[in-house]
């Protein structure tokens, strides 16, 4: 009985949650610099035991309001599975980065995960149909 309880405690400690992070990079970067910045965060996540589930690069987008006097920015989204402790470390990295205009990390509940999967499946089907047509 005790051993079961102890075992479940260990499992709980390393529970992986699904998160989604969106960040905006300054538009002054060149294409290469931007890719390098994105790669830094991908590597940071994978090196620290996170598993990247999905990624989206929205490219240069107009901002709804100016941030640091910039009216555009590069948006990048990463969906990943990680332990909770990693998020704080990730956000420290974000804060130290001067290329970063804004970032947002949210935990995805089961409905959000289902929604994202459905959306991805739909996009996949659409692209498949396009290829066939």
């Amino acid at each position, binding site marked *: 009985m005790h051993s079961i309880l102890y075992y479940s405690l260990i499992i709980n400690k390393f529970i992986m949650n699904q998160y989604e992070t*969106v960040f*905006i990079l300054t538009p002054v970067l060149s294409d290469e610099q931007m890719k390098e910045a994105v790669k830094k965060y991908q590597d940071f996540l994978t090196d620290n035991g996170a598993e990247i589930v999905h990624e989206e690069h929205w490219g240069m987008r107009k*901002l*709804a*309001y100016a*941030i640091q006097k910039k009216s555009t*920015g590069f*948006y990048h*989204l990463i969906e990943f599975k990680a332990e909770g402790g990693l998020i704080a470390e990730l956000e420290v990295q974000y804060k130290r980065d001067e290329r970063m205009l*804004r*970032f*947002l990390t*949210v935990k995805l*509940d089961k*409905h*959000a995960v*289902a*929604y994202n999967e459905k959306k991805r499946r739909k996009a996949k089907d659409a692209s498949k149909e396009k290829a066939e047509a």
Partner: protein
Amino acid sequence: MAQGNSEIKYLTPIAVDTKKKKYCRFKKNRIKYIDYKDADFLLKFVNEQGKLLPRRITGTSTKYQKKVAQAVKRARHISLMPYVADLLK
């Protein structure tokens, strides 16, 4: 002369209760998650100044109004929606 006709008579009963009942679109369509990245959709829940509309206007249930508010705030943070605006629509 026509004093007996003071009582007004209608051919069809006046429509009093024709006001459409409001409903929560999330409950009705079984939407469980409100995406903060979908700014076009969230635009339905703000007025032209970019302020959140109250529940009594949109008909959203309490449970989902909270989620709408959360999503709008997230969208504002990553600059997909404005904090202040005029003539948004």
